[in-house]
C-alpha cells in the first residue's frame, strides 16, 4: 500500500513519490540513473557496494541512494550535478575493477554486463593498479546448473541475499572476511535450490554463470521474444532467447503483478523440448507406416472416422486458451459429444465450477498481490514449492511481512520454516477442514487457523490445491470455510493452463465460462453464440473415457498434448485403452511413448511458436507471442481443430485468431456466480485404518516430457524414485531408513529405496509421481491415492540409492 506522497528535487528536477521510496528509485522516476550493483528493487537495501553515492543537501557525508528513503523537500545531487558524488563513484569503480580480471572476451556476461556498462559510463578510463590481482581456480561448480567465477565476483551479495530473503534456501553464503571474502557453498552441500538460477540473472557481473549457457552465445547473436512459461500455472513472464532458430536460454521478465523478477529453475533450464530430436513437424499416418503425410491427406481420413464412430478427447494442461476453446466447441457442435477432459484424477466439484466461472472475474479472483498482502493464508492439498514455485515464493514474501501461514498437507513442504504444518493423512483433510470451518477452540492447529482466518476477514486467503479434490467433499469444504468466514478462496490447478481448460469447458459437464451443461439456462447462453450443442448428456471423465476405449466402446480417441501412459493414474487401464481403441490420434509436439499405439499423428506447435493466451492459477490471461516461426508444417492446436471441422463439412466459425478472440470475448463476461455452500452436515471423525495410504504428486523436476533433454537441470535437482514413510509406521513393520522396499497396491508393485522421515503424515506413504525408476501411475487405479502394503526387500542393490547426501529442495532435516 503506497504511503503519502513526498516531493523532492533530484538534479534540479522535481519528483513526487510515495513515502518510503528510496532515493535511487525516485531518481529512476525522472530518468536519472545512479550507478549501482548491490541494489535490487526486490531485495532489502544492503549499502554494500558503495557505488550509488549522491550528495544530499545538509548532509556532510555523501549518502548511498539505495539505502536512504526520500524526505519532503530533500535536495539531491547525483553524479550529474555534484562533482563530489561523481568523483566518489569513479573512485569506487576503481576499487571494484582493481581485482576484476580482464575476462570480458570470454565472459558470458559480456555485452549485457552492468559492470561493463557502468564502468564505461561512470568509471575511470585506465587502471593504476600494478600489483598482482587475486586469482582463484575457476569456474567452481556450485551445482550442475550454476558455476562460480570468484575472480569476477564483486561481493555485492545479491545472490546470498536472494537465498536468504526470497527463497530461504541458504546454500549460498559469504565465507571468510576482508579480501578473502567469497561467495561459496559448503563443500559437499550443492546449491540445490529450485530457484538457484535467479542468482545468475541478478548477478551484476559474470561471477555466477549458467552452465547450460556457458560459451553458447553473445547477446548480439540472439533474437528474443516475450512469452509466458508453460511448465506450471504460475504464469511467470519470461524472455526466450533464440540463436539460429534454436532456443538457447530463458530469462525471467519482471512483472510485479505476477512473478516479481523470478522464475524457477525448471522454467529457466527446461527449454529444449521444442528442439528435441523426437519432435515431429509433419502429420504421420500409420497406414503409410508412419511416414510423413500432409494435412490434406490426413484430415479427411480422420474426418471420416469421426463422422461414423464414437469420439472422445483427452488433453494435457499446456494448450492455450484458444486451443481449449476451439476444442470445446469442436466437441460439442461438430463431433456431438461431451466426452472430453483435461484432468487426470481430481474432480473439484463445486470448487471447480467456481474456478471455471471466475476465469474472467478479477473481482473474485485471488491474485499474487492478494497473497503478498494477506495476513493469513491457509493452504490445503498443495505443495507450492514443487507444484507452483513462484506462488511459493510469494507466500514466503507474505510470511516475511508477518503473515500467518497454515498448511494442511500429507507431506511437509518447504514452507516449514515460515508456516505451521499439520501433517494430514490423504483423505483426512476433510476432517481437519471441517474443524476449521466449525471454528473449534481447543488450542489445536485447527483452532489457531480458524481464529487467524476469522481475524483476517476478507483479507484472509484459503488456497485449495487440486489434489484436495481427490476426496469428493474436500475442495468444496475449503470453499465452505471461505464462504463462512468471508475469506478469499482459490482452487489452485497445477499445470500451465489447467485453468484455461476449465474455463473453456474442456470438461464432461462444463461449458465455457463455468456454465454447466446440465443447467438449461446456462447451456442456452452458450448456444446463443455457438448454435445448437449436439451432445445430449453429460460426458465421461478421463477415467471413464479410457475405460470405454479399453472396452472398445469409443472408436476414435484424441490424445492432445498428453501422455496417459505415464500421466494417467491407472497405467494398466491407459495401456489397454490405447491398445484397444480403433483409432488413436496423437496431437502433440512429439510422439514419445505413444508411438506403438498411434494411428495418426498431428503435429502441434510448441508454445514458443504460438500466439495466444495462457491463464495462470489466478485466472489471469496473459498473451504469449511466437518467438520463432513454426517448424515444418506444425500448427497451433486450434487451427488443427478448425481444419478437422472443415474436413467434416462443418465450420468452427473462425479462421483467424482475431475472430476466435472476438467470439471468446462474447462468452467470457463476468457472470453471476453459482451459490457457494454454507450449510454443512459435518464430516464426522476420521477412522484410523490399519493399512497405509499411498499418495503421490509430481515433483518439480521429473521425467515429464517438457523437461526433455534438460540434462543439467536433472543432474542438479532430479532425484531417483524413493518412498517416504513415517517412523511410527516403519517401526511397526521393522523397516529402517535406506532399505529397499516393495510397495504393493491393487494395481501393481514396485521396488524403491525407503526414507524414514517424520516429514510425512503417519499412515501414509509418499512416492513421487514421475521420477526415474518409477512411474507411480503403475501403482494407481484411477485416483492419486491407493491402499498399499510395504515390505522390505532382500535385494541389496535397491538399498544403494537411499537418502541422498545433499539437502533436498524440501530443506535440511529438522
Amino acid at each position: 500500500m503506497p504511503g503519502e506522497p513526498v516531493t523532492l528535487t533530484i538534479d534540479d528536477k522535481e519528483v513526487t513519490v510515495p513515502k518510503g521510496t528510496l532515493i535511487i528509485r525516485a531518481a529512476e522516476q525522472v530518468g536519472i540513473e545512479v550507478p549501482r550493483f548491490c541494489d535490487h528493487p526486490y531485495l532489502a537495501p544492503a549499502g554494500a557496494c558503495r557505488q550509488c553515492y549522491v550528495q544530499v543537501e545538509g548532509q556532510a557525508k555523501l549518502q548511498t541512494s539505495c539505502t536512504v528513503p526520500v524526505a519532503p523537500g530533500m535536495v539531491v545531487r547525483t553524479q550529474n550535478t555534484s562533482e563530489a558524488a561523481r568523483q566518489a563513484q569513479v573512485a569506487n569503480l576503481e576499487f571494484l575493477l582493481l581485482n576484476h580480471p580482464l575476462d570480458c572476451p570470454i565472459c558470458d556476461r559480456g555485452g549485457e554486463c552492468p559492470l561493463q556498462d557502468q564502468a564505461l559510463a561512470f568509471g575511470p578510463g585506465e587502471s593504476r593498479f600494478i600489483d598482482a590481482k587475486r586469482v582463484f581456480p575457476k569456474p567452481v561448480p556450485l551445482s550442475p546448473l550454476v558455476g562460480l567465477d570468484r575472480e569476477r565476483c564483486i561481493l555485492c551479495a545479491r545472490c546470498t541475499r536472494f537465498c536468504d530473503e526470497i527463497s530461504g534456501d541458504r546454500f549460498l553464503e559469504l565465507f571468510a572476511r576482508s579480501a578473502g571474502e567469497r561467495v561459496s557453498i559448503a563443500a559437499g552441500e550443492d546449491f540445490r535450490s529450485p530457484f538457484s538460477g535467479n542468482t545468475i540473472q541478478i548477478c551484476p557481473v559474470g561471477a555466477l554463470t549458467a552452465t547450460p549457457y556457458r560459451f553458447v552465445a553473445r547477446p548480439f547473436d540472439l533474437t528474443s521474444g516475450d512469452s509466458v512459461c508453460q511448465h506450471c500455472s504460475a504464469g511467470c513472464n519470461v524472455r526466450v532467447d533464440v540463436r539460429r532458430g534454436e532456443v538457447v536460454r530463458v530469462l525471467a521478465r519482471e512483472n510485479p503483478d505476477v512473478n516479481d523478477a523470478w522464475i524457477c529453475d525448471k522454467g529457466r533450464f527446461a527449454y529444449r523440448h521444442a528442439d528435441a530430436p523426437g519432435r515431429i513437424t509433419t502429420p504421420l499416418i500409420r497406414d503409410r507406416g508412419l511416414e510423413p503425410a500432409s494435412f490434406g491427406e490426413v484430415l479427411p481420413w480422420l474426418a471420416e472416422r469421426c463422422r461414423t464412430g464414437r469420439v472422445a478427447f483427452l488433453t494435457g494442461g499446456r494448450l492455450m486458451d484458444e486451443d481449449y476453446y476451439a476444442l470445446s466447441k469442436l466437441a460439442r457442435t461438430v463431433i456431438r459429444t461431451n466426452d472430453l477432459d483435461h484432468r487426470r484424477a481430481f474432480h473439484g466439484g463445486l470448487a471447480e465450477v467456481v474456478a471455471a466461472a471466475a476465469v474472467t472475474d478479477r473481482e473474485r479472483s485471488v491474485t499474487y498481490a492478494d497473497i503478498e498482502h494477506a495476513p493469513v493464508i491457509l493452504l490445503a492439498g498443495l505443495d507450492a514449492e514443487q507444484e507452483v514455485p513462484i506462488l511459493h515464493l510469494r507466500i514466503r514474501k507474505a510470511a516475511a511481512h508477518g503473515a500467518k501461514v497454515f498448511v494442511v498437507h500429507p507431506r511437509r513442504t518447504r514452507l516449514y520454516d515460515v508456516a505451521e504444518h499439520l501433517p494430514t493423512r490423504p483423505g483426512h483433510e476433510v476432517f481437519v477442514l471441517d474443524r476449521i470451518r466449525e471454528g473449534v477452540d481447543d488450542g489445536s492447529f485447527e483452532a489457531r487457523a480458524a481464529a487467524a482466518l476469522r481475524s483476517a476477514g476478507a483479507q484472509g486467503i484459503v488456497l485449495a490445491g487440486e489434489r484436495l479434490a481427490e476426496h469428493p467433499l474436500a475442495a468444496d469444504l475449503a470453499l465452505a470455510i471461505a464462504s463462512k468466514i468471508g475469506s478469499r478462496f482459490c482452487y489452485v490447478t497445477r499445470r500451465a493452463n489447467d485453468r484455461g481448460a476449465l474455463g473453456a469447458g474442456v470438461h464432461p459437464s462444463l461449458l465455457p465460462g463455468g456454465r454447466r451443461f446440465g443447467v438449461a439456462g446456462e447451456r442456452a447462453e452458450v448456444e446463443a453464440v455457438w448454435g445448437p450443442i449436439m451432445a445430449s448428456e453429460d460426458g465421461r471423465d478421463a477415467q471413464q473415457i479410457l475405460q470405454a476405449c479399453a472396452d472398445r466402446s469409443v472408436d476414435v480417441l484424441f490424445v492432445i498434448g498428453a501422455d496417459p501412459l505415464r500421466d494417467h493414474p491407472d497405467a494398466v487401464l491407459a495401456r489397454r485403452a490405447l491398445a484397444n481403441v480403433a483409432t488413436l490420434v496423437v496431437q502433440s509436439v512429439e510422439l514419445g511413448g505413444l508411438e506403438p499405439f498411434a494411428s495418426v499423428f498431428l503435429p502441434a506447435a510448441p508454445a514458443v511458436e504460438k500466439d495466444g493466451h495462457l491463464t495462470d492459477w489466478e485466472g489471469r490471461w496473459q498473451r504469449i507471442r511466437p518467438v520463432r516461426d513454426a517448424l515444418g508444417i506444425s500448427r497451433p492446436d486450434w487451427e488443427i481443430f478448425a481444419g478437422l471441422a472443415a474436413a467434416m463439412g462443418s465450420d468452427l466459425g473462425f479462421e483467424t485468431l482475431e475472430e476466435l478472440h472476438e467470439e471468446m470475448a462474447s462468452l467470457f463476461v463476468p457472470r453471476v456466480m453459482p451459490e457457494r455452500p454454507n450449510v454443512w452436515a459435518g464430516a464426522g471423525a476420521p477412522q484410523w485404518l490399519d493399512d497405509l495410504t499411498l499418495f503421490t504428486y509430481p515433483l518439480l523436476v521429473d521425467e515429464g516430457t517438457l523437461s526433455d533433454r534438460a540434462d543439467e537441470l536433472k543432474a542438479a535437482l532430479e532425484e531417483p524414485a524413493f518412498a517416504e514413510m513415517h517412523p511410527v509406521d516403519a517401526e511397526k513393520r521393522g523397516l529402517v531408513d535406506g532399505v529397499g522396499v516393495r510397495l504393493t497396491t491393487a494395481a501393481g508393485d514396485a521396488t524403491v529405496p525407503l526414507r524414514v522421515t517424520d516429514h510425512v503424515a503417519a499412515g501414509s506413504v509418499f512416492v513421487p509421481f514421475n521420477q526415474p525408476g518409477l512411474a507411480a501411475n503403475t501403482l494407481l487405479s484411477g485416483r492419486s491415492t491407493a491402499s498399499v502394503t510395504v515390505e522390505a526387500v532382500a535385494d541389496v542393490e535397491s538399498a544403494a540409492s537411499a537418502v541422498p547426501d545433499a539437502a533436498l529442495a524440501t530443506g535440511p532435516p529438522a
Partner: protein
Amino acid sequence: MPLLYLAQSVEGSVTREALREIGALLGITTAEVEAVASFYTMFRLRPTGTHVISVCTNLACKLRGAEAVFEAAHEASGVAHGAERSDDGLFTLHEEECLGVCDFAPAVQINFCNHDNLTPERMRELVAGLRAGEVPSPARGPAFDSFKTASRALAGLEEVTSA
C-alpha cells in the same frame, strides 16, 4: 559460536563433519555454519597443531621488537612461513593483531594464555618447553595445556570456581 569452540575442542579444528553436525543440530544449512566459522580467526578450519602460538606484531608490540620474537618462534617451532603447522603437528604459529597487552609488549598467546614482555630468547625457551611436554605458566590466569583445552574453556565448559 560456542558450538564451534566445542567442536574444535574435541577434534583439534572445526572439521567438515562438525560443520554439518552443527547445522543439523540447529536446523540450518552447513553453508550457514561455515559462513560464521570462517569469519573469525579463532575458529580454525584447517589442520592445527597441538599448540597454537599467536604472536602480536601490531604497532605497540612491533615497536618493542615483536618481529624478532615472531622470527624466533618460526625457527624454534619449525612452522614454515605460510604453513598451517609444523611437520610434527605440534605447533601452529601465526601473526596476530592487537591482543590487548600493549602494556607488556611484545605479547604472545600460547593456547590463548598470555605470555608478556617476550624476547626472542624467551620465545625459544617457551617453545622448547612445550616440545618437552611442559605447560608454561602464563603471566595471568590458568594455563591451558593445548589448543583443544583452551577451546573447551572458550566453549564455556571449564568449571567456574569462586575466586
